[in-house]
């Protein structure tokens, strides 16, 4: 069966697309089928950037997520655009550092995560996406922290290697945060 249909959205540079890629990489690493599809074009330059991610035990028929089980939003325009499409009973993870508003739907499980503040605490101000990734790992239980850690090690090499440890730490912080909400 299809395990998770995920929509991740934020403004350009917040790392919504790369977070989605990491989930897909982790899914494949754990023997699942995975697809990742970005919104692209004009939307990539400014506006909201979003991606569809599917991890599945079976072949994935169609890669665009129209009714996500999990929706992670990193800025206000993304909340306004995507809250309405989440599957009834689905999960909405909100970056409360950037979004003061609350969700309006009552048929969703909503989690507020001060991701940028946690990232600041770890002195990695661009790492809010890793915190949210950690929260997703805890709530969904579909992929393992070790898989993400391995992917971080593989992604951050060369001049970026110094970010690997800090990013892994942020994922762990997110996982811990997820356990307590």
């Amino acid at each position, binding site marked *: 069966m299809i395990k998770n249909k995920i929509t991740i959205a934020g403004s350009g540079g917040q790392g919504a697309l790369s977070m989605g*890629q990491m989930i*897909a*990489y982790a899914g*494949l690493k754990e023997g699942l*089928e*995975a*697809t*990742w*599809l*970005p919104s*692209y*074009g*004009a939307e990539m330059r400014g506006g909201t950037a979003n991606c569809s991610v599917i991890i599945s035990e079976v072949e*994935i*028929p*169609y*890669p*665009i997520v*129209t009714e996500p089980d999990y929706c992670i939003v990193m800025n206000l325009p993304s909340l306004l655009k995507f809250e309405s499409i989440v599957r009834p009973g689905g999960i909405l993870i909100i970056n409360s550092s950037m979004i003061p508003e609350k969700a309006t739907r009552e048929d969703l499980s909503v989690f507020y995560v001060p991701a940028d503040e946690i990232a600041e605490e770890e002195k990695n101000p661009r790492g809010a996406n890793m915190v949210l990734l950690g929260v997703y790992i805890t709530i969904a239980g579909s992929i393992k922290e070790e898989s993400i850690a391995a992917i971080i090690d593989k992604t951050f090499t060369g001049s970026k290697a110094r970010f690997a440890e800090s990013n892994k730490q942020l994922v762990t912080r997110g996982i811990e945060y997820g356990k307590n909400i």
Partner: protein
Amino acid sequence: MTKVLMKGNEVIAEAALRAGCRAFFGYPITPQNEIPEYFAREMPLRNGTFIQAESEIAAMNMVMGASASGARAMTSTSGPGYCLKLEALAAMTLTRLPAVVVVVMRNGPAFGTMNAAQEDYRMNGNGGYKVVTFAPSTIQEAADMTFEAFDIADQYRNPVVILADGMIGQMMGSVDFDKLPAKREHLPEKTWALHGRGQRNGKSEFLFIAEGKNHYQEKYDAETILYPEIKANETSVEIVDVEDADIVMCAYGTAARMCVAAVEAIGSEVKLGLIRPRTLWPFPYETFGQIGDPCKAIICPEINIIGQMIDDVRIASAGRWPVHHVGDSATGPLTPDGIIEKVKEVWKEMKV
């Protein structure tokens, strides 16, 4: 090697490299940019040539020159660039030069939008010619078809087109390069390749129309010998449950994936079959003979507003079933929901 997760565009480029492509000429256009970018990174490391040309016209003419010199050459583009490449593509069918042209389709006409689409099915250069046209539906298939395209181009001395939609280019999916098709054996030697007449004991080669032929003879031979041979050998199609379907859908590329999603959603209410051409030329006309008696209608979903492949579907149907188009709406591109709605509508009409 195991499965890796890659963007469709990069998969196409890697498969081409594995097929021995060492000459790539491109020009930036969304949504195919990752293809030239991949070659720009890889060609210097893998002893190949990458040129970002001044235009799609120039890029395709460079492909022609490299192919004439015996190289496995390729270019990639989207609809607005494909029109420009048709000039040299048509010339290469006449001069009988192999090459692979990848078209990652977007919404048109002209500027259109950058949304994935299926808008270039009908696009053809001047003068009448046919080229094997692949339509990948998955990332693995994009790899397999690109890999095989080079062999097919060389086997028949005729270009091959990969008609992918923007979603195949942009999505990441799993691919296993160990599962590429086997390399074809006994491909004809390129004795015509231009390296100077010294390569042929002083006999010079003039690449224009095969020696001893005029235009009419060349085209006549193509239509009566070459194209029938390609049709017999290369037609490829996936057929799902057409024998007892109430409605058969015919779609390619991402639209076919949407059909699979539609079958999952309402397959229990209506028996749905699927014909998915893997080659758009040669089009699998004969396949429609396998459609069973219960079938009352054909639906042809395409990611466009004015149907294109539907004309071939109508020819294949030969009046045996009504053929319905479903495509983009006034607000956006085709979705699985759009197909489901169309199936319900046609099903309701059938039951009345």
